[in-house]
């Protein structure tokens, strides 16, 4: 599912879980101005075990007020496990490699590599996490594959309805600063 789908998903869940519990009777215009992208946090790669894909589990300070530490760490650890599974060098990967070599790599026209299969699982997992955990808290995780496996990008959305004046003024100051 593409990022635009996430946004729509997030937006609806934001209204459903985040805004409504606080202000049941919001006018249409208030809802329209409700969410805006406030910040992005980037979880960098952890190269301590070599070139295998692994992300740092250090909890970023910007998320402190938004999500529980354990939930975040669970997500990152699960992602790391998925990537380790994709890059694992063992019996199955050898078999796949030898078979591919024997068929001059034509077999990949009909079959997808193990890595691709795991990437699909990861995409589903991230979507599920976004739906269940992150979107209700005004956060959104981007699949690392869309960022070249360099970072896990977590977008933080502000509810402008509740913090209207502050984010409004910050955007104004942002424009004048440029």
């Amino acid at each position, binding site marked *: 599912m*593409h990022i635009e789908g996430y946004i*729509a998903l997030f*937006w609806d869940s934001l209204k459903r879980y985040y805004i409504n519990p606080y202000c049941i009777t919001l006018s249409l215009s208030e809802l329209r101005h409700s969410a805006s992208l406030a910040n992005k946090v980037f979880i960098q790669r952890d190269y301590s075990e070599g070139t295998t894909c692994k992300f740092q589990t250090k909890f970023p300070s910007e998320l402190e007020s938004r999500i529980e530490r354990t939930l975040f760490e669970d997500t990152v650890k699960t992602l790391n496990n998925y990537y380790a599974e994709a890059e694992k060098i063992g019996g199955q990967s050898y078999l796949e*490699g030898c078979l591919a070599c024997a068929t001059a790599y034509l077999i990949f026209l009909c079959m997808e590599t193990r890595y691709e299969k795991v990437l699909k699982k990861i995409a589903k997992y991230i979507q599920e996490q976004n739906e269940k955990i992150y979107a209700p808290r005004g956060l959104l995780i981007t699949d690392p594959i869309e960022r070249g496996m360099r970072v896990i990008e977590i977008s933080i959305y502000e509810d402008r309805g509740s913090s209207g004046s502050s984010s409004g003024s910050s*955007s104004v100051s942002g424009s004048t600063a440029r």
Partner: protein
Amino acid sequence: MHLGVSESMRECEYSQISTRSSTPMETPYKKRTPKKRKWEIFPGRNKFYCDGRIMMAKQTGVFYLTLILILVTCGLFFTFDCPFLAQQLTPVIPVIGGVLFLFVLGTLLRTSFSDPGVLPRATQDEAADLERQIDVANGGTGYRPPPRTKEVVINGQTVKLKYCFTCKIFRPPRASHCSLCDNCVERFDHHCPWVGNCVGRRNYRFFYMFILSLSFLTIFIFAFVITHIILSSHQNGFLSALKDSPASVLEVVVCFFSVWSIVGLSGFHTYLISSNQTTNEDIKGSWSSKRGKDNYNPYSYGNIFTNCCAALCGPLPPSLIDRRGFVEADVPQLAPPTNGITMYGSTQSQQSHMAAATPLLQHQSSEPVILTTSPENGGTLTGRASLALTGPCTSLPLGQPTPPNSTSSLSCHEATDKLPVHGHTLTHNHSNPLQESVFQHHFLTPEEVPSPPGMLHCGSPMGHSHTAQAGFYDPASQDSLHEDSVRGLVKLSSV
């Protein structure tokens, strides 16, 4: 009430677009150029064919030479030598020759046409975030910071990660920036002009198979052409044998010179694979014991067999640059100085400089980057729409590319990092923001997600603001987005 307001807004926005495009009668839908694929705006110096399926380096002349040499030599072998050999000895010879030839060709094409493991450049937000972290680390002195490196301990060995000023990322270990292709490549081995591409993580095994099978093929042809000449000269005499098949002489000459270099190269790469090093590391002597007593290769698995298996039979990672994907339409990014830190070194100043210089980017500089659905931002979104419609930015010449190796030498060109990358910071930063502000990977804010008419029935109060902005998008290309959004909403409503 709101309907009326947004309708009038929409009218204003439509008329704004049409005046800019100077065709007042045309609707925005017709005016929109077809969606570009990502390879068309790729910032590196690569050539793409078959609508992004094939990726090669910029200079491909030597690759065609390789192809011609192989095809001509094998063609001559099959035409002139094989009939004689099949008769005199056994017909298995042409069959084996044929299999070898096909394997060589297959691996050559696979090496040349595939993505070697190019790392996509950082998005603007990422680069800004990194710059901010580096500034904080440097104490924010405001002076030109020293060359940026990060140290990391891998399996007990300290490895320095360098910051790439072109790609604006900290290079992963074993990655290197190829000056010829202007890309950072994972597990960069070398840039091979004979193959017309970089050799990196994703195509190293094909490259190795290519040179291995080519050495077998060369030896095979050499041996059997000599056999042919000897057998033929037993029957007719040496000189008449040569006169009968002059092609054999040519083949012998080509194979003789090839054997030394190709077999030598295969041997060298076999050594590299068994010790799990790249050509780059070997040349620099990164892991040689001469550097220090405790210097060892942290990536090696310990034994030769595991190293070989890992390099040749390990999992093949997918391409990180989505060549055939479509370029996203306008996606907003963060306002940089929301947290009070206004100075990002040269990046921001360069950006505002470039923004002033180019008319297209004027819109970007004048608007607050945090986009909301407030109606006054309608004009800014227009600006972003026009930004997305610009033609592919030609990659600006960056730094001093090393000239391609002379064709007389048969060794592959190793484009090591000997270029003082940090000395090129100024030129890199001047030319890159233009590329990067066009080639961006952004998000759509919730307000910008176009909603199909069906979604209005879901009772979404955002429906009106959606359609207000949705006018910019070509409906045909948004079908997949609509589908996803609808699917997403349906999923949630079922919860």
